[in-house]
């Protein structure tokens, strides 16, 4: 599982209200949520990004409420992956459960600049800055988590299992 895209940098403690302001929580359609992703930090964000781009952030990304809308909004906006120094605990679970790929790496977060082209390989944990040639190593993602992300999140993963039960 590999992603290539332009890096969009964010600082520490980006909370769920920045990711998707509470005033838009009256809808649950991912496309609607995506329109307002990061709006309070950068109103042009969704217009500027291209499908497959990557968010690179500092520590405690996704802190605040337990809303699952936050990873849904990021994913639906077209972001392929979030690399951060660390993630808030509930966001970490919600991201995988909603099928948003995330990876922790302090070195990468420091060594990537706004606008750099980067490549993230979830399977090996390798993050390459294609602009500067620098390489970083995060923890590789185990097979079952790649599968869960490929299926589009936890419940979709479970649904697939129900439909094709393999003997175990």
């Amino acid at each position, binding site marked *: 599982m590999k992603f290539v895209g332009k890096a969009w940098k964010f600082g520490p403690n980006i909370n769920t209200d920045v990711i998707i302001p509470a005033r838009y929580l009256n809808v649950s359609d991912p496309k609607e949520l995506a329109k307002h992703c990061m709006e309070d930090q950068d109103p042009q964000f969704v217009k500027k990004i291209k499908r497959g781009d990557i968010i690179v952030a500092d520590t405690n990304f996704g802190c605040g409420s*337990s809303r*699952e809308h936050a990873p849904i909004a990021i994913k639906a906006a077209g972001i392929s992956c979030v690399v951060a120094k660390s993630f808030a*605990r*509930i966001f*970490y*679970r*919600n991201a*995988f*459960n909603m099928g948003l790929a995330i990876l922790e790496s302090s070195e990468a977060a420091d060594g990537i600049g706004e606008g750099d082209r980067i490549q993230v390989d979830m399977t090996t944990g390798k993050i390459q800055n294609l602009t500067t040639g620098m390489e970083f190593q995060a*923890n590789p*993602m*185990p097979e*079952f*988590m790649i599968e*869960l992300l490929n299926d589009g999140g*936890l*419940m979709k*993963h*479970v*649904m697939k*299992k*129900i*439909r094709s039960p393999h003997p175990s």
Partner: protein
Amino acid sequence: MAMTITEKILADHCGLTEVRPGQLINAQVDIALGNDVTAPIAIEEFKKAGAKRVFDRDRVVLIPDHFTPNKDIPSAEQCKILREFARAQEITHYYELGEVGIEHALLPEKGIVLPGDLVIGADSHTCTYGGLGSFATGVGSTDLAAAMITGELWFKVPETMKFIYYGKMRTWVGGKDLILYTIGDIGVDGALYKAMEFCGETIEQLPMSGRLTMANMAVEAGGKNGIIAPDEITRQYVDGRARRPYRFFGSDPEAHYAEVREYDVSTIEPQVAFPPDPGNTKGISEIGEVHIDQAVIGSCTNGRFEDLVEAARVLKGRKAAPWVRLIIIPATPSIYTEAMKEGLFQIFLEANAVIGPPTCGPCLGGHMGVLAKGERAIATTNRNFIGRMGHPESEIYLSNPAVAAASAVRGRICSPEELD
């Protein structure tokens, strides 16, 4: 590689010989728990996914305890979703009024959760069962739905913090005071993501009730789980309750810890957590004049039989101050029965206490003792966030059962020693 008890239980449940902190694993779940607040959402997800049966009707546990006896029409509807699902799925551990108690007191008591288990619950205080030497952690409703269907769930192996307690506890000091003191020391995010392992000579002598109380509040320090290595005290508690085999795990002496802290408990006095969070603790001698309107003794933290005995020792022959409402809630029907048989009810009733049916009730401001604006309560519960027990401008102070009882008698927060 040397491992902690948490790492060993997780490794065992994902079929690996070792796991490291930070590693993502897919693990088998022994028990998956939901209540009347969280299970309805999980049941909806279960149905949406097209699932037909739960993975094991003995291992999916549904406990309507938060707003029962049904507080109002919406709570009744929530409970009905549980009831109908439990019937259709022939869930073994679903309990109706008269048999139901607060989940985290009921499950250990009935031997549903056992040492060495991996337990997930859609309730943050699921970590209570770590007192038995199991890995137990709170999850969201989506996670519960997935676990109900597949019997497995993914986890990130936490780092472990070790807390060593030594020395003899003072009179009127118990598990609640040790955990409040610890949270006061490290703060409400002091153990974020981490396993909190409680050990040392004091813990080795701590009865099961106190161990469950300590593990119960691990989440109040941000912990993923709290855990105490099982021993003879555990065996005595579990034998006679367990209806399936269980296993004891323990940490290797060379296991790696993110941090180690030591406490000489002989210096710890009864603790009181001031609003607005459980980390805002003070020793009882430092609290000054805090008048109260209500005292609540109960909850999954301190509603067990031993807690009621402690309260009765203070209340015997005394009465609650005329301006104080004293509410006592035995956490389960069998605690209720035992308290009645042992004469505790007589003491409580003579102290002008009201005895509630087993329920979460006022702990989450649900019913049976909510606070008005500006009112203040002392409670043996685990959270004193703004508005948790009622009006946003009411206040909650957390303590052990003896301090709560003594404070009810005095009308202001005080040590039981002050009554002698």
